[in-house]
Every structure is written in structure tokens, then in C-alpha cells.
């Protein structure tokens, strides 16, 4: 069955909260007919690369993206993972046997991108249970131990605990040591203010469907003029017989990254994204209040740093684990009970730990979520 199962549900999956598309945008895309055809952006492509299209103005949009994040140049990619791949690819060419130093809370896409490019990942430690923080000193120590990593990667907000890494401090160190520095902002770019110049970052990787209120797959790679020539280098290949050339294509983004409906969507959502980023403090306040309320329910505790500085919340929930042991549906009961209450987003099968987010939810919706958890917590009784 192909029907969408969760229409009008409250979504609390932290993966998804930053990627909720404004209703006005989905309506516009549907009404105007943007879904009519696959290559919907190619009607007015003159130069042979989607990032150079001016009708609609993709080219200008990408410079706006670059400016908004404090960088010089941006290209759209097939998601943050493809942006990270482009960076790793570039690094693997500059330093063929280089070592990538990453924080230990990286998303798998960072490690897979490195693996795709034959780069080895070495991790700095975190502080362990219950905060799992990445501390400046331990990163610096690791940088010194490695000698000269080919690249330093910080996962701005990590996907395990929602901790913010010390991206500015590490950036300063990398700048001094002239080590290329990538900040993976898949979980932050589009929800909180970021300026990559302030961070001394050479590469900023972003996810439109994760944190920029867009459908996917779509991401962005923002970089500086110093690196753009390398990472966005144009094709040099020339097959022998025809002698054709593909001089506008960028191999690191597959020649042209198509864009299609996701790109149109992200362009439509961007004004909304720019506004919402200004309200990050309010979101963080709401989030910290929510944490307290959750912990008031009983045997529940937030992991990761506190006060919490990101919307991803990871709770340990012995309270629900106890219920699950006696429940007919075992570990599945929690997600299922929430779904019964119109709330979707808990990982199915897990009850010891839950990850969720109330980013962008109204006070009323947050109350509903809390109320639902409360009801489920009482199932045991």
C-alpha cells in the first residue's frame, strides 16, 4: 500500500523536524504544476549545469546561500552526504593517503564519504556517559598526535545527542595550522545562525531536506574562493575519439546535480528559513522547558549536554523499558501508543532510549506530545 500513513500527525522525529515544508510552499509546488515533469528545472537551461540556470534563478539562489552561511561559493548536491563526498574527494586528491580527523559523534555519512574516497577516519574521544561531549583540548591533542591531518571534520550538532561541537575554537586551531576544516551542519544550517567565516571553516555541508524546510534529496556545499577552484573544478576529461569536452560540468557533483523538484522547493522555502533562524533562542528555551517536563514524568533522563543547545533530544527511558517488558508488543509499544495518539517519530522497537524533537512545534502541540507521553507512562499502572 502506497498511501501516506501519517497525514496530519504531529511529527517528533528529530531527523524530520527541520525538514517540514511550509504549507504555502507545498501548495504552490502542487498548484503551479512543478510535479508535472522530472527535469522541471531544465526548461531554461542554457549553459548545461543546473547551478547556472537563471530562470528560475538558481544561480542567484546559490550565491544567496553562500552569503547566508558566510561563504564565497555554493553548489547544490544530492544531500549533505554528497556534499561531504565532494569535500572528501577533493581532500583525497590533495593528500592521497591523508588521515581525516573527525569528532566521535559524526553521522555515518561522514564516514561513508571518507570510505568512498579511500580516506581513513581517526576520531577524537568524547567525554562519555552521560554527556558525550567533544572537548577542544582532546581534539587539539589528537590533531597533534596525528601530525597533520588532511582534514578536520566537526559535526556541528551531532545526530546522537544533539551536542554542539566547539566548532569555532577548532576552526581557530585549524586556521593557525593551515589544516583544511569542514563543518558538517546538516543538523544546524537552516535552524540556527551560522557564519562559516566566523568558524574559520573551509567547507560547510548542509542538508536541505533535513534542516532547510525542503523535500529531498538536496544538500549544499558552501566553500571559500580558496577551495572552490579545487572542489568545484570543471571537467578536464576528453574522450579520445570524438574529442568532446564537458567544460561546464563539475565532476565532484556528478557534472550537474540536477536539482529538480527538491531544489525548487528549497528555493521557495528559503525566505521562511532565513526568518526562522532568527528565532533559534526561543526554540532552545522551549526545548529546555520540554526536557524538564519530560524528566518530571518519572524515570527519564536526557543524555548530552545541558543546558541543551540543540533541538535533538536523546532521553534514556527506563520508565518505558519497564513497561515494554510486560507489554504484548514489547519494545514496539511505545512508538505504537504514540501513533495511536497522533504522534509519529519514535524509532519503532526501541523503548530504552528515545530520540525526539519539538523544534517548530507550537505550544499547543508540545503540550499534546507531553500529554501523550504522560498517558503512555501510565499504561503500566
Amino acid at each position, binding site marked *: 500500500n502506497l498511501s501516506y500513513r501519517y497525514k496530519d500527525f504531529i511529527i517528533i522525529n528529530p531527523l524530520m523536524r527541520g525538514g517540514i515544508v511550509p504549507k504555502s510552499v507545498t501548495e504552490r509546488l502542487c498548484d503551479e504544476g512543478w510535479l508535472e515533469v522530472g527535469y522541471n528545472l531544465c526548461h531554461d537551461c542554457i549553459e548545461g549545469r543546473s547551478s547556472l540556470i537563471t530562470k528560475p534563478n538558481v544561480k542567484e539562489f546559490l550565491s544567496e546561500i553562500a552569503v547566508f552561511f558566510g561563504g564565497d561559493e555554493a553548489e547544490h548536491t544530492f544531500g549533505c552526504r554528497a556534499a561531504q563526498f565532494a569535500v572528501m574527494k577533493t581532500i583525497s586528491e590533495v593528500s592521497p593517503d591523508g588521515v581525516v580527523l573527525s569528532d566521535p559523534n559524526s553521522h555515518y555519512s561522514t564516514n561513508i564519504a571518507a570510505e568512498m574516497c579511500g580516506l581513513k577516519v581517526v576520531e577524537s574521544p568524547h567525554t562519555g556517559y552521560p554527556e558525550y561531549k567533544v572537548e577542544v583540548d582532546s581534539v587539539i591533542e589528537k590533531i597533534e598526535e596525528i601530525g597533520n591531518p588532511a582534514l578536520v571534520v566537526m559535526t556541528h550538532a551531532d545526530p546522537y545527542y544533539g551536542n554542539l561541537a566547539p566548532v569555532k575554537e577548532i576552526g581557530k586551531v585549524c586556521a593557525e595550522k*593551515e589544516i583544511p576544516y569542514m563543518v558538517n551542519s546538516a543538523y544546524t544550517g537552516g535552524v540556527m545562525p551560522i557564519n562559516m567565516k566566523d568558524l574559520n571553516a573551509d567547507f560547510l555541508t548542509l542538508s536541505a531536506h533535513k534542516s532547510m524546510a525542503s523535500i529531498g534529496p538536496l544538500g549544499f556545499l558552501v566553500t571559500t574562493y580558496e*577551495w572552490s577552484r579545487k572542489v568545484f573544478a570543471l571537467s578536464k576529461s576528453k574522450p579520445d575519439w570524438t574529442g568532446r569536452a*564537458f567544460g561546464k560540468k563539475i565532476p565532484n557533483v556528478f557534472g550537474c546535480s540536477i536539482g529538480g523538484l527538491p531544489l525548487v522547493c528549497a528555493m521557495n522555502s528559503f525566505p521562511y528559513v532565513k526568518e526562522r533562524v532568527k528565532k533559534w533562542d526561543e526554540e532552545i528555551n522551549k526545548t529546555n522547558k520540554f526536557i524538564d517536563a519530560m524528566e518530571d514524568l518519572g524515570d527519564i533522563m536526557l543524555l548530552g549536554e545541558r543546558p541543551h543547545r540543540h533541538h535533538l533530544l536523546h532521553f534514556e527511558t527506563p520508565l518505558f523499558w519497564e513497561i515494554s517488558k510486560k507489554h504484548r508488543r514489547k519494545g514496539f509499544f511505545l512508538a505504537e501508543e504514540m501513533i495511536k495518539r497522533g504522534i509519529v517519530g519514535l524509532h519503532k522497537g526501541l523503548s530504552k532510549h528515545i530520540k525526539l524533537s519539538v523544534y517548530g512545534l507550537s505550544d499547543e502541540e508540545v503540550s499534546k506530545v507531553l500529554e501523550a507521553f504522560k498517558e503512555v507512562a501510565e499504561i503500566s499502572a
Partner: protein
Amino acid sequence: MMIMENIRAHLGMKYNLVGVKILKEKPVDIEKPTRKLRYCEMVRKAANGEVITAEHEDIACPNAEVTLGFVEPVYVDIQPRISPAETKVVKVGPLDKIRDPDIILAILNPRQAMEVASIMDGLEAKFAGSMAVCGEATAKPYMEKKSNVTMLCGGARTFADFRDSDLIVGGPPEFFEELSKRISALSKTCVALCGCKTSDLSPRIIESFRKIGFEKGTDYFFGKVDGTNVRIYLNKDTHGKIKYITVHIPLRGVEVKAKEPLIVKKRGNWTDVAMTFGLGEAIDLNTGRGLKEAIMDILKKVSDSKVIAR
């Protein structure tokens, strides 16, 4: 200012271009630096985005006071320098924040300088390894209205944190405007069906054909001779080297009976009449010599053939 973006993007520059203004009168309201600075330090900060306005008393380096024209030299002359010494204020900042700069500085590495030199058909350099940012990169171009390259000086590398690989090209705005213009010209688009080049035919060959009235199609040439459609295709050998030239006449809805060396091929309701020559036999592609004659010869052979309407 698009010049800066254009140049930085093309060269892959880490830093901003720095605009320098030499003012002979002190503007009202200037925001002075909190401590004395060397001029090279100021430039370095400007390259990173700061705008700095300095009077004589804010300059920490005695040589720069002279080279920038705040004061005349006292005992021996120092060159290069701005003279007469009428400077009251020097303002530096990223180019997009300095209106009508007198001089523009670009902090480059050797590869970037090489590219500038190649785009501008050469760069002149006169440097002595002292008073470099203030004298060689600023005062000299200011006085001579010409660009100069400097490999910096000990002061700049020690006190202003310039890296071993840094050098500076300084020049009047006109120099950088021309550079930007030439860069834009480099990246002109090629209109093609897919945004890609569909062949490697050289401009010279394309020009030879144009001279005899043939326009390039995708990877072949088309034109009319005495009202008949003629196509010319340059055949390659199996290794991609142009070896032959085929003159091709597509005729629709007729039958043709023709003799060797003409080749006749049916293609749906088209009949293709063609003849292939080895290059060099009668035609020189680069000069176009013999091309027209060959085409006329074939056309004559075709019209001598038997054409039967269907």
C-alpha cells in the same frame, strides 16, 4: 564590486583584494585604530575584512611614514615613495568597502601570480625585499600608474604574519578592472545542445569553412552551393585523427545513378551522394585551399549523374 568576486573566484584567492586610499585631507570623523600599526599589518587585516583608517601618528613603522608620503625623507632619499609628501590619512579595507581606491593590492601565491601574468600577457616586477607592502606594492604603482609584484620584506613576514608563500601584486584600479574583464571573457559560454562541446574541430578549420560559406553544425559543416544542399564531414581514423574529408549531398525523394568515385546510399526517402578524399590530396584544411574546387567538382559529377524523380 563584482571585480573582487570575479578575480577571487577565478584565482582561488583566500583573501579579499585590498583597496587603498591615500588622502591628502583628513576627513571629519575617522575611526582610528586602538594601537599603532605597521602598514603591512593594516593590509593584512584589510585582507581579512577589516577597514582601517590611519593618520601619521597611527603608523608604527618609520619607513612607511616616508614611503606612503606622510613625511619627506630627512637624510637620504628612500625609493619608492609617494612624493610630494602630502598624505594625511591612509585608508585600507576589503575592496568592496573602499570606494574609488587609489591602489588595489592582491595577496597571492606563486601559482596565482603566474595566472595573473598569463592573463595580462606579463607582469613587471621590481623588488628589493625591503619596504615591500608600503613601497613596492603601494607607492611604486601609485607614482607610476603601473602594477608591480613584490616578494614582501622581512618586516611583513615577521610582524604582519604573511606566509612564506604569499606575495603581493599591487596596481591601479584600471589594472584590476582589465584583469577582471579578461577573466570574464575566458569563461564565455559555448552554446551547444547539451552545454558541452560536441567536437574538437579547431577554430582555424571552422574559419576556413566559413570563408567559403559553410557554417559549422554539430561536428560537420553545412551550406548551399548553387541552391544545392552540401554537407562536409571530416572523417577521423580509428584513433580520432582527422584523415578524410567527405562531401555529402543529401537528396530527398529522388533516385540517383552515379559512377565511382561517387558513393550513393539510400536512407529512407533520402538518397545520399557522397565522395571522400584523403586529406592533403587536394585540400588543405587549415588554409581552405582546394576546398571550393573539390566541392564544385563533385557537384558537377552529381549533375552529370542520372537523377530520377520518384
